[in-house]
């Protein structure tokens, strides 16, 4: 079986730092952060105040179909927006419109979607609070008065796979598909699974999406209580790093077999070369100090791509700003790259941690940075943590060693993923 080459023909992104990949990279290169005081609720009495919220998020600017707004949540709005951007960027619909009528259905059957989604939120369940108040703790009354107090579409709004279902309906995509609800690595795994499906010939093109809007009170509070939230800034690998900060948004890539892209004359932005993902198996929150899982994921990705550490031109680290993750990430990079490490950067300091969308947004931005031939600096980095010694990070922009980027992503359940892409 020959393995199909997988290319990238479209990208899309939205987060606090902008509505397009180029704009977001511009904010990063300017050294400014879009992380700001939370505006969705009053945090004056709260122990934590900061996040990367999309300013003045306008549902209609993200998803034109207003009827849809009742059926989906904020996280779905950003996911659908980024997915549309990637599909439109690839010129897919215009190409399909020009097909002979009998060619359209087979084309749709060969076009899929794979989404990394942040399943589960707390705020959505508050929709039952008015009913619970009316029922005075009486479950009989709760059941009896249910339909008078709760939106009949409540369960559909709750579905973690809404972006998958609705992007399918919007673009009439009928091919292979999946929705991965695997905390922070969801978006990266969407790219890896799409790559594998295209390699195996399961589809000709797949839009891969990651989306999440985790900035809600109860979620922020939990992350704070378990010690994951930074006190004043997200400073990956810095001596003063003390936690992460949430961001929100989405990233998307249109992936195709090289044959499909060539057939429709689509401009190729880059190539997905390989990926790897493993679990450390220590439970939901624990991570190994030695970076074992991340090192194994990187080696697996290199092996998958048939590449060596020396081929990597830049590394986009997970760099979430928690001490435990940063230090073990540095250990993993030392294990794999030793003293021949390419420039390392990270982007979360500029717009926050997008959880399920983090890895795929980083991938979109890595391609944008390689296009501009720059490794952006980490502007919040002042003094490298001694425990991260040897890590090739800088506050200043540098030049990449090659057109090849390694993107790292880590999530709950000890899951570590690594992805290798090359910019055209």
């Amino acid at each position: 079986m020959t393995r199909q080459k997988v290319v990238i023909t479209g990208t899309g992104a939205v987060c606090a730092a902008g509505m397009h990949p180029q704009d977001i990279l511009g904010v990063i290169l300017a050294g400014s952060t879009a992380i700001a005081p939370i505006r969705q609720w009053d945090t004056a009495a709260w122990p934590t105040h900061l996040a990367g919220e999309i300013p003045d998020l306008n549902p209609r600017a993200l998803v034109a179909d207003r009827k849809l707004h009742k059926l989906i949540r904020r996280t779905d709005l950003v996911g659908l927006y980024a997915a549309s951007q990637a599909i439109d960027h690839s010129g897919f619909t215009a190409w399909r419109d020009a097909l002979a009528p009998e060619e359209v259905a087979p084309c749709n059957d060969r076009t899929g979607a794979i989404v990394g989604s942040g399943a589960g939120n707390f705020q959505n369940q508050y929709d039952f609070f008015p009913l619970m108040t009316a029922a005075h703790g009486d479950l009989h009354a709760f059941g009896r008065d249910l339909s008078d107090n709760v939106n009949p579409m409540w369960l559909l709004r709750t579905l973690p796979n809404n972006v998958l279902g609705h992007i399918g309906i919007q673009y009439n995509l009928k091919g292979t598909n999946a929705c991965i609800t695997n905390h922070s690595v969801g978006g990266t795994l969407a790219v890896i699974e799409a790559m594998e499906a295209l390699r195996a010939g399961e589809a000709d093109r797949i839009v891969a999406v990651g989306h999440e809007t985790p900035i809600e009170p109860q979620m922020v509070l939990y992350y704070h209580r378990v010690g994951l939230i930074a006190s004043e800034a997200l400073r990956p690998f810095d001596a003063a790093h003390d936690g992460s900060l949430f961001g929100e948004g989405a990233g998307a890539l249109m992936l195709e077999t090289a044959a499909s892209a060539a057939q429709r004359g689509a401009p190729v932005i880059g190539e997905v070369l390989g990926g790897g993902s493993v679990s450390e198996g220590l439970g939901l929150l624990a991570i190994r100090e030695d970076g074992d899982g991340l090192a194994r994921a990187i080696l697996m990705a290199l092996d998958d791509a048939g590449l060596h550490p020396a081929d990597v031109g830049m590394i986009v680290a997970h760099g979430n700003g928690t001490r435990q993750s940063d230090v073990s990430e540095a250990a993993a990079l030392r294990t794999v790259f030793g003293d021949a490490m390419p420039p390392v950067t990270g982007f979360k300091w500029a717009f926050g941690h997008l959880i399920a969308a983090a890895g795929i947004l980083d991938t979109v931005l890595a391609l944008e940075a390689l296009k501009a031939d720059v490794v952006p600096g980490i502007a919040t980095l002042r003094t490298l943590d001694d425990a991260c010694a040897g890590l090739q990070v800088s506050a200043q922009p540098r030049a990449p060693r090659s057109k090849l980027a390694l993107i790292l992503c880590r999530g709950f359940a000890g899951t570590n993923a690594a992805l290798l892409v090359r910019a055209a």
Partner: protein
Amino acid sequence: MTNERRRVAITGVGMVTPVGNDVATTWESLLAGRSGGGPITLFDASGFSTRIAAEVKGFRPILFDDRKLLKFTNRSHRFALEAAEQALRDAGIRPTAADATRWGCAVGAGMMTADFDDLALTHAHGAAGGEIDTDALLTDGPANDPLVFCRGQAAEGLALLTRRFGIHGYGTSVHTACASGGQALGTAMKLIRRGRVDRVLAGGFDSMISPIGIGGFCLLSAVSADNETPQRASRPFDATRNGFLLGEGAGFLVLEAWDMARARGARIYAELAGDGNSLSSYRITDSPPNGDGPIQSMRQALADAGAIPAQVDYINAHGTSTGMNDRSESAAIRAVFGDDADRVSVSSTKSTMGHLIAAAGAVEGVVCALTIARGEMPINANYRERDPDCDLNLVVDEPRRQKVRMAMSNSFGFGGSNSCIVMRHPDDVDGLGAGGTPS
């Protein structure tokens, strides 16, 4: 990595279902069509339009006894840990320190976040007027309890399973509503084919029998309201069907690279031979009446297995007992199987155990493996009145006993994801080439 595609063997199975807390009991119930439906006992459902469900009964995690880990579990996680332990014991193999990185874990997990009791506490403390007072959250019990946080995370099931069983390879948790379990099995099969791992603990788990879960389905009018006859409420393909019966539980399988399973002399239930996935892209809650969507997933699964419809002897239908699903699925089976649809036996075991949502595809995958291994096809219970739009060769009244060469399991989800997996009798695998075609 070799160019030859690896075959995948099913060597262990485990189930916790509304009709049995282990494989043997569940299987007997499915053959006899003994329904797991009854009045809801987990909470006072007397005010709901639907007051029935298929609950897991008398469940105590018997094989699974880690008290410390149990604190991190919700109801569905306990089902998962138990069914997974059953599957590993059945397979007679489990991860060791030496091969932990060669084991993967792929699960279909449910969509619920906080347990209702925790939500009720938060309501009483911080939302007595109906709107949340965000400052009150700062002193709320559940909102500050890391255990509530962990139990509510979508990746918690995966975290518990990989920790408990020491799995250090590829781990993933998926959710495409009612297609989740099937999608997890397909993902697991492909992990072995790709050579990423040699063995996978794969399955699904769910429990939505709560005021919010059943409430959500009541609001959509998706569940049967036959409150006086809960054991008859689920009657897939029957002309009088009027909604599904909500179930709960877990199903797990141990998948292994074929040659490794053979080499260790493992009992092989079946080959997990093919996987197909499509999107209906029609409506969020339905497939179209002509079966478009499910047709493609079934054809892809057969092609992936190197099989043709004439080789399939049994279909475990998605068969939810809702008007539109059963009609659409029947049309799809007719379209894919043509005249063979008169021959191939079909049953929906949801007629007996209800709809296990994210666990459904995994449990029904176990059912297909058992169908092949035992040469017995469970019945489509409660079927009385023929629906001309559901013209299928249903297994009614008595289980059918014959060699099952290939079995197919359909799972279709809200959101339009269709999953189909195909299994092959182990005796028919020898003599086939790696890709599934005769060598």
